[in-house]
């Protein structure tokens, strides 16, 4: 995770602006959403901040969830039903508490594991240009490019990790289902075929008199 809130010494006048605009935060949480449940998260965002909400369902049922994002007035900014994965970027139009909810209310007995990543604001520059007299040195610009590349690497890594977890969950589901179904089918096969023979035998055993009449 890139460093947050770390910058050189700022003049006091710019401090307030910096706190409001450069307050970059990212929260990522993986939690379990039981069936018929809804879980909401809230965050206070300043006006003009660019935010990104990304979520993915890792385990459970059909790997889908309802998601809803509302602004402080209650207006719905984003609403999707039964989505497996999505990413939504928006700019806060006003100050206040934004709310986003994940709902598993359509499911009767499967609980889901949901991952979300809510990024607020852009990251502050590594080497802030406020008090700068000269341009960035080669060392510093190398640092900045490595930092950007690493952020991208970590981002891809997280996506890959989640997709792999989802795939593994599906594979384990499939394995259990194949095992149980095969055992069940073999038992049904045995029971039905043995039962058929005994049933047929019982038809002929009861009506012995009818059989001899048929025979003669």
């Amino acid at each position, binding site marked *: *995770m890139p460093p947050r809130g770390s910058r050189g010494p700022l003049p006091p006048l710019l401090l307030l602006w910096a706190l409001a605009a450069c307050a970059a935060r990212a*929260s990522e*949480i993986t939690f379990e959403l039981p069936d018929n449940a809804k*879980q909401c998260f809230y965050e206070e965002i300043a006006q003009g901040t660019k935010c990104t909400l990304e979520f993915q369902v890792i385990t459970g049922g059909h790997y889908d969830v309802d998601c809803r994002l509302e602004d402080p007035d209650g207006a719905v900014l984003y609403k999707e039903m039964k989505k497996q994965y999505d990413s939504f970027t928006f700019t806060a139009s006003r100050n206040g508490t934004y709310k986003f909810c994940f709902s598993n209310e359509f499911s009767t007995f499967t609980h889901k*594991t949901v991952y979300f990543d*809510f990024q607020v604001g852009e990251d502050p520059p590594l080497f802030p240009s406020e008090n700068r007299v000269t341009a960035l040195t080669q060392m510093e610009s190398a*640092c900045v490019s490595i930092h950007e590349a690493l952020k991208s690497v970590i981002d891809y890594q997280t996506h890959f990790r989640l997709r792999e977890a989802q795939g593994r969950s599906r594979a384990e589901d499939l394995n259990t289902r194949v095992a149980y179904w095969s055992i069940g089918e073999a038992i049904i096969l045995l029971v039905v075929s043995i039962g058929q023979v005994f049933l047929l035998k019982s038809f*002929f055993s009861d009506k012995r008199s009818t059989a001899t009449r048929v025979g003669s």
Partner: protein
Amino acid sequence: LALYFHIGEREEKCIIEDLPSDTLVVGNYKVQRWDIRTHDFLESAPGLGMFVTVTTPSGEVLLSKLYGPQGTFSFTSYLSGEHIICFQSNSTRFAVIAGSKLRIHLDIRVGEHFLDESAIQAKDKVNEVNVRLEHLIEQIHHVTKEQDYEREREEKFRKTSEETNSNILWWAVVQTLILISIGIWQIKSLRDFFISKKLV
């Protein structure tokens, strides 16, 4: 501490963190209680504490402590896998009373070793780049650890898929054999039966 959510007073809320081994996790939280009189969350609630429990993938409890209404907890994973971090308040009041609920602010950071802010503000050019480079090296180490863990998980995934594949094949063969042998037994048994009943 910006992101928050609500839970009931006696409810336990857990979050899952899939971690490689030897990873440091630091969590900051703040809990507020709903006040029925002012219809708002109290800024501070003295006496309110939070049980933080961390369970390792093997079921062992790594951390189980009672913290105050605001606190920081940290732990280092020694196994790789899904660690479960649970929060429960130590409130003894029943939640039935006026539907009280708690607001929990949460911030969890995985695999970060925080920059020493004072070192950056030392206004020493070389020092600043030095500190940044060290942080970058930490990040790269974390990426490498995650990759090793990913390799383990992918192997488990592949094993499960191969097991499913051989399961399907084996059960299909077994079922065909059962079908054939039962069929033969059925015909034989019925033929013997009809012969004994003098129908054939």
